[in-house]
C-alpha cells in the first residue's frame, strides 16, 4: 500500500470514528437530519471566508463553515421554539436556504475571480478523499481526540440531556447549553469531514454508524464505542475498496460499506434486530395460542361431565373463532408437553398434568377478565394478556383479592371442586 493511500486510509478511518462518536447523540436526540442541515449550511461560511480573505486558507474556511453551521442550528431551534414551524420543516428550510445562499456565493466567486484558487471550494460540496494530506490527518485526529475528551468529561451530563432533557433542567443543569455543546461538537465533526467526503456523505457518516450501533445495545457507553468502531471500519473498508477498484469513488464506497453494516445489524442484532424480534413475536404467539387453547378446553371440561377427560375437537373448535388448523397445531404443541394425547375419530384426551395446566390458564384468564371489568380505566393500552405476566403486572394483594372474588362466584378454576378429588397445584 502506497504512502498516499495509507494517509488517506488513516484520515477516513479517524473521520469515521469521530463522526460515529458524535453522531450517536444526534441519532439519540432524534436529530439525525440536523447533521444533514449542518453539512449544507457550511457552504456559505466557506464562501464568505474565501471572499473576505481573497485566498484559500483551510483554517479560515473551516472557521467560516463552523460559524454558519452553528448559526443554522440556532436558526432551527429558534424556529422550533418561537413559531408554529415544526422541527422537520425548520430543518428543511434552513438546509435549503443556507445551501442556496452558498451556491449563490460560490457562483459569484467563480464568475468574478479569475485566479485558480477558486477551484478548491467545490470540494466542500462533493468532497475529495484524495485531497487528504498528512496535516489533515493530524487535524482530524485532533478533532476526534477533542470530541472524545469532551464526551468523557461530560458523559453523565450528556447522557441525561440526551435521554431526558427536562429532567436535566429540573436537576438544575444548563440543559440548553449542554444541548448546544452537543450540536457544536457535531458541527465541528461535520466541518472537519466536509472537504474529504462532501455534504451528503458526511450526513451518512454521522447517521449510519450510530443507527447501526443502536441495534446492538441499550447502553450509551457501548453504543458510543461500537458506533466509533463502525465508523472507523466504514472509512477503512470504503477507502480500501476504492483504491482497489478505480471506478469506485471513495465517498460513496464508504457510505455503501456503512449501508451493508446497517443492513446486517438490522437483520441479525440480538433483541432489537429484525430476526430476533420476529422470533420472539413467534414465541409470544405460540404461548398465547397455548394458553387460549387450554382455557377453552377447561371451559368445555367444566361444563360437561367433569370425569370425562376426552374431548371432541369439534366441541372445542366451536367455542372460539379459529380454524381447525390453528387448533390442531396448538394441540400438537401441547402433546409434546405431555398434556394431550390424540385419540381416533377427531378426539383427544387430557392428561392430569394437562388438566392442571388448563386450570392454571383459565385461572389467569378469569382473573385478568375480572381485573379489567373492575378497572376499566386501566384497560386502555393493555390490549392483550399473557398469564405469566399476571404476577408481574399486579400486586400480590390484588391477585389474592381477585382469587377471593372468583371463589365467591364459584368460578375459580380448580380440579378439586368438581370431581371431588384434590389436585393440588404444585
Amino acid at each position, binding site marked *: 500500500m502506497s504512502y498516499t493511500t495509507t494517509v488517506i486510509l488513516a484520515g477516513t478511518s479517524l473521520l469515521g470514528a469521530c463522526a460515529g462518536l458524535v453522531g450517536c447523540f444526534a*441519532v439519540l436526540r*432524534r*436529530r*439525525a*437530519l440536523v*447533521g*444533514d442541515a449542518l453539512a449544507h449550511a457550511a457552504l456559505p461560511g466557506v464562501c464568505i471566508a474565501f471572499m473576505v480573505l481573497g485566498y484559500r486558507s483551510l483554517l479560515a474556511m473551516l472557521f467560516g463553515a463552523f460559524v454558519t453551521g452553528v448559526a443554522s442550528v440556532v436558526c432551527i431551534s429558534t*424556529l422550533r421554539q*418561537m*413559531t*408554529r*414551524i*415544526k422541527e*422537520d*420543516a425548520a*430543518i*428543511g*428550510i434552513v*438546509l*435549503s*436556504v443556507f*445551501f*442556496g*445562499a*452558498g*451556491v*449563490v*456565493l*460560490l*457562483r*459569484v466567486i467563480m*464568475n*468574478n475571480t479569475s485566479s485558480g484558487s477558486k477551484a478548491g471550494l*467545490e470540494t466542500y*460540496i*462533493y468532497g475529495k478523499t484524495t485531497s487528504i494530506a498528512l496535516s489533515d490527518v493530524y487535524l482530524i485526529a485532533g478533532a476526534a481526540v477533542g470530541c472524545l475528551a469532551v464526551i468523557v468529561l461530560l458523559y453523565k451530563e450528556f447522557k441525561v440531556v440526551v435521554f431526558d432533557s427536562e429532567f436535566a433542567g429540573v436537576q438544575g443543569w444548563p440543559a440548553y447549553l449542554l444541548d448546544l455543546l452537543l450540536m457544536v461538537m457535531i458541527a465541528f465533526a461535520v466541518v472537519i469531514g466536509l472537504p474529504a467526503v462532501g455534504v*451528503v*456523505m458526511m*450526513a*451518512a457518516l*454521522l*447517521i*449510519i454508524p*450510530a*443507527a447501526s450501533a*443502536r441495534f446492538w445495545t441499550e447502553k450509551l457507553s457501548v453504543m458510543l464505542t461500537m458506533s466509533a468502531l463502525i465508523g472507523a471500519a466504514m472509512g477503512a473498508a470504503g477507502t480500501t475498496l476504492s483504491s482497489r477498484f478505480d*471506478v*469506485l*469513488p471513495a*465517498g*460513496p*464506497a464508504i*457510505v*455503501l460499506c*456503512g*449501508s451493508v453494516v*446497517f443492513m446486517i445489524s*438490522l437483520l441479525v442484532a440480538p433483541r*432489537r434486530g*429484525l430476526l430476533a424480534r420476529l422470533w420472539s413475536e413467534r414465541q409470544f404467539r405460540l404461548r398465547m395460542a397455548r394458553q387460549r387453547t387450554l382455557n377453552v378446553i377447561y371451559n368445555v371440561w367444566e361444563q360437561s361431565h367433569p370425569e370425562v377427560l376426552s374431548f371432541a375437537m369439534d366441541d372445542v373448535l366451536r367455542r372460539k373463532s379459529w380454524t381447525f388448523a390453528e387448533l390442531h397445531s396448538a394441540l400438537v404443541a401441547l402433546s409434546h408437553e405431555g398434556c394431550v394425547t390424540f385419540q381416533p375419530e377427531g378426539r383427544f384426551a387430557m392428561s392430569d398434568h394437562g388438566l392442571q395446566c388448563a386450570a392454571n390458564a383459565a385461572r389467569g384468564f378469569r382473573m385478568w377478565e375480572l381485573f379489567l371489568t373492575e378497572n376499566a380505566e386501566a384497560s386502555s393500552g393493555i390490549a392483550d394478556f399473557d398469564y405469566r405476566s399476571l404476577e408481574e403486572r399486579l400486586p400480590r394483594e390484588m391477585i389474592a383479592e381477585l382469587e377471593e372474588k372468583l371463589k365467591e362466584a364459584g368460578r375459580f378454576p380448580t380440579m378439586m371442586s368438581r370431581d371431588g378429588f384434590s389436585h393440588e397445584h404444585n
Partner: protein
Amino acid sequence: MTLGRWLSADPRDVTLGLRTIAVGSVCNVSCAVLGCYLVLRRMSMLGDAISHAILPGLVIGFLLTGSISIVPMFAGALVFGMLTAFLTQTLQTYGRVSEDAGMGVVFTSLFALGVVLISGIGRMHLDQDCVFEGKIDLVAIDITDFWGLSVPLALWSLFPVLVMAVAFILLFWKELKVASFDPMLATSMGINATLIHYLLMGMVAGTTVAAFEAVGSILVVAMLIVPGATAHLLTDRLGWMILWSAVVGILAAILGYIGAAYWNTSVAGMMAVAVGGQFLVVVIVAPRHGLVSKLVGNLELSLRIVAEDIIAALYRLEEQRTGSSEVDRATWADCRQFADGSLLTRPAAILLRLRGQLAFVSGGHVELTDAGRRLGNSLVRSHRLWETFLDRHFELPADHLHEPASRIEHFIGPALQEKLARELDGSAVDPHGRSIPPLEQDDTD
C-alpha cells in the same frame, strides 16, 4: 440590473428573463402546492430525501434504454422515490429505527449507490453542478415552437406536472385533508390513508424528477418546504394556504431571477434565497403567528393584567374603607406595589385614566371612577366566586385559593360569573369570610 434598467434593456434580454421566470414559476408552484401537505404532515424532510434518492433511478432508467430520454428516467426515479418513502416507513415500523435516522440512512445510501453507478458507467455525462443547480440558466435558450409561440423546452415536462399536481389536489381534496390532519379519522371514515400517503409520495417524486432537470435539487427542496411553511404562518385554512404557497413560489421565481441577474450568479440558488427571504419576513410580521404580533399580543395581555390588578386592589381598599375610616387612600406609589412593581405600571395607569376608570386627585392620590369601580367590582366578584368554587369542589388548603383565583380572575367573563354564582347557589361569602360583592349594574345604560 435594477428594475428601471431591466425595463429599458434589450427586448431580447427581457424575453429571456420572462422565459426563465415562467419556467421557475411553473416548477415552484407545482412543488409548493404539494409541499403544503408535506409540511402539514410533518414529512418535510422526505422531500429532501426523495430528491437525493432518485439518483440511482435516473441512472438505471438511462442504463436500460441507453439514452437520456425523459420517460424511462422518469419511471426509474419515480420507483426510487416511492422506495425511499416505503423503506423509511418500513424501517420505522419493523426496525424501530426513528424516522429521521431511517430516512438519513436510506437516502444517503441510495444517493451513494447512484454516484457509484454513474462512475461505473463512465460514459454517462452528468454535470455535477446540474445536480444542485439544474439548467435553469439555460432554459431560456432551449426553446421550441408551440402554435407560433416560442416556449421554453423545459415547460414541456414541467407544465404537465403542474397540471397533474393541481388535478391530484382537487380530485383528492377531501381525502388529503382528512388524511393530513387526522389519519385515524381518515381510516375510520373508510379512506385509505396509506394509499393517499403513497399517492402523495408518488406525486412528490414525479414533481421532483421533472423539476430536478430544470432547476436542480436545492430549488426543489427549498420549494417543497419553504412556501408551504411560509403560507402556514399566514393562514389557518388549507385552501388559502395552498394559494399563498403558490404566490410565494411565483414571487420567489421573479425576485430570484432579478437578484441573480443583478449579482450575476446562480438563478436556482438565488430563487432559494428569495424564498428564504420571504419566509424570514413572514416569520417576523405574519398577522397572527408572526414574532411581532406574538410580542404585541403578549404585551397587550400583560398591560391588561397590570391595569386590572391595580383596579382590583383599589376596589378592595375602598371596601375596607367603608368599614373603618383609618385606611388611607391609595397613592401613586401604592399602585406600583399593587402591580408587583411591574414596568408596565405607568402605561397601565395612563391607559386606565384615558379610559376614565382611574382619576388622579389632589395630594398624589388615586381614586376609582364609577366605571373603574364597576370593573373592580366585576374582578373581585370573579375572584371570590372562583375561590368559593375551588373551596367547595377541590380539597385545597385555604391559603392556596388566592393564587389561582388571582390568575383566573382576568379571564372570567359575565357569562361564566353567572354560571359560577348559580353553581354556588348564590353563596354570599367567600372561604376567607369576605362577602362576594353583588354585580353592580351600569347605571348609565
